[in-house]
């Protein structure tokens, strides 16, 4: 309402001074919206390009040996068994599991790297004292990976990736035993893992 009033008053007032000067039109176009759109598209394409470059991770599995003579022997001193449970749970023990399960420990996906590194160094130290050649000091080091039924694919890939990261040359993906599963169950119950 106020606008109309003002406009009316204005036009009446301006009639006096005479003819309006023709406004000189600028030939320049406002490019801001176009540039905005341009950048929007750039961001879109940058994101879509980087997201579609997956990589391939190698996984070599051993043959299932039927004959017990062909099975690979693992030295107890060099073995590290890692078990994966539900809710991103991760458990490990060194060497063989004690009957009372006292060397069964829990860890996290973050801390397991330190466990692997420490074990690798221990084994290499032992290898040095046994007089192994310098480039095969870690030949007794074997990581046995045992995912249980409730672990996820991501858990398995993460731990396999950890093998690459820590340069573990000998590792095996093995089925979990019932005893180990029971230990995991007990620990999960104690810690209230859903």
């Amino acid at each position, binding site marked *: 309402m106020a606008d109309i009033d003002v406009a009316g008053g204005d036009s009446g007032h301006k009639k006096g001074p005479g003819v309006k000067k023709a406004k000189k039109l600028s030939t320049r176009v406002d490019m801001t919206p176009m540039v905005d759109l341009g950048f929007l598209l750039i961001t879109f394409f940058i994101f879509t390009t980087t997201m579609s470059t997956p*990589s*391939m*991770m*190698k*996984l070599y599995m051993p043959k299932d040996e039927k004959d017990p003579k062909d099975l690979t022997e693992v030295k107890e001193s060099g073995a590290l068994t890692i078990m994966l449970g539900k809710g991103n749970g991760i458990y490990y023990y060194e060497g063989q599991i004690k009957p009372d399960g006292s060397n069964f420990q829990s860890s996290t996906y973050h801390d397991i790297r330190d466990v692997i590194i420490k074990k690798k160094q221990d084994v290499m130290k032992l290898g040095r004292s046994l007089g192994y050649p310098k480039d095969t000091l870690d030949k007794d080091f074997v990581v046995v990976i045992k995912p249980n*039924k409730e672990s996820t*694919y991501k858990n398995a890939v993460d731990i396999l990736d950890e093998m*690459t*990261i820590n340069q573990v040359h000998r590792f095996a993906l093995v089925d979990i035993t019932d005893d180990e599963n029971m230990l995991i169950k007990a620990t999960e119950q104690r810690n209230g893992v859903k």
Partner: protein
Amino acid sequence: MTPFVDVAFLILSFFMLATKFKPPEPLTITTPYSVSSDKLKEQDAVRVEFDSAGHIYFTATVKNETQDNGLKLELIKQVNANRNLGLTNAEMVSFQNYPTVGSPFNQIKSLLDLPREQRDKVKQPGIPVDSTNNELATWIGAAKVAFQGHQVFYMIKGDNNASYPTFKGVIEALKKNDEYKYKLITDPKAVPPGTDLYNKPQAGKSD
């Protein structure tokens, strides 16, 4: 501002031309991360995919589409003969044109009857990999026969939240066919500093 805008549009056109859109996939999969630096390439490959619910899909891809297109037909012929599926020629060609399946054998025929666009929309139950009925092993066996003389890559693409038994079933199927080398499709991530891999000389990094 003009030069600035010029450069911006140059970058824009670069990305537009360089982007290769992924073909629509029947499964939504978020892959885990790995430090592997091997890039995914076009290859004669058998690709096994599974999502978080454990639906397993099988895809055959050939590197040279024009020359080797017949291999896919050969594959479905093998499966047809092995399992007496009674597929018609048209159904087999339907597989050749779009070699992705995620159904047990008793549903394959009705699946291949559908036109391509509809096959993506159908909710397929996935290929069974139970220890008693590992149908994926048949598919892989047929692929092995069909791709004879070619270097075949066995690629596994799984979802983060898929359960381990699904993955194990896939591996069992491959093992049954005496295949022990696989490629897991993952998203790349940086090597954590200070680790053995990080300190290793560049030359052997892809190992």
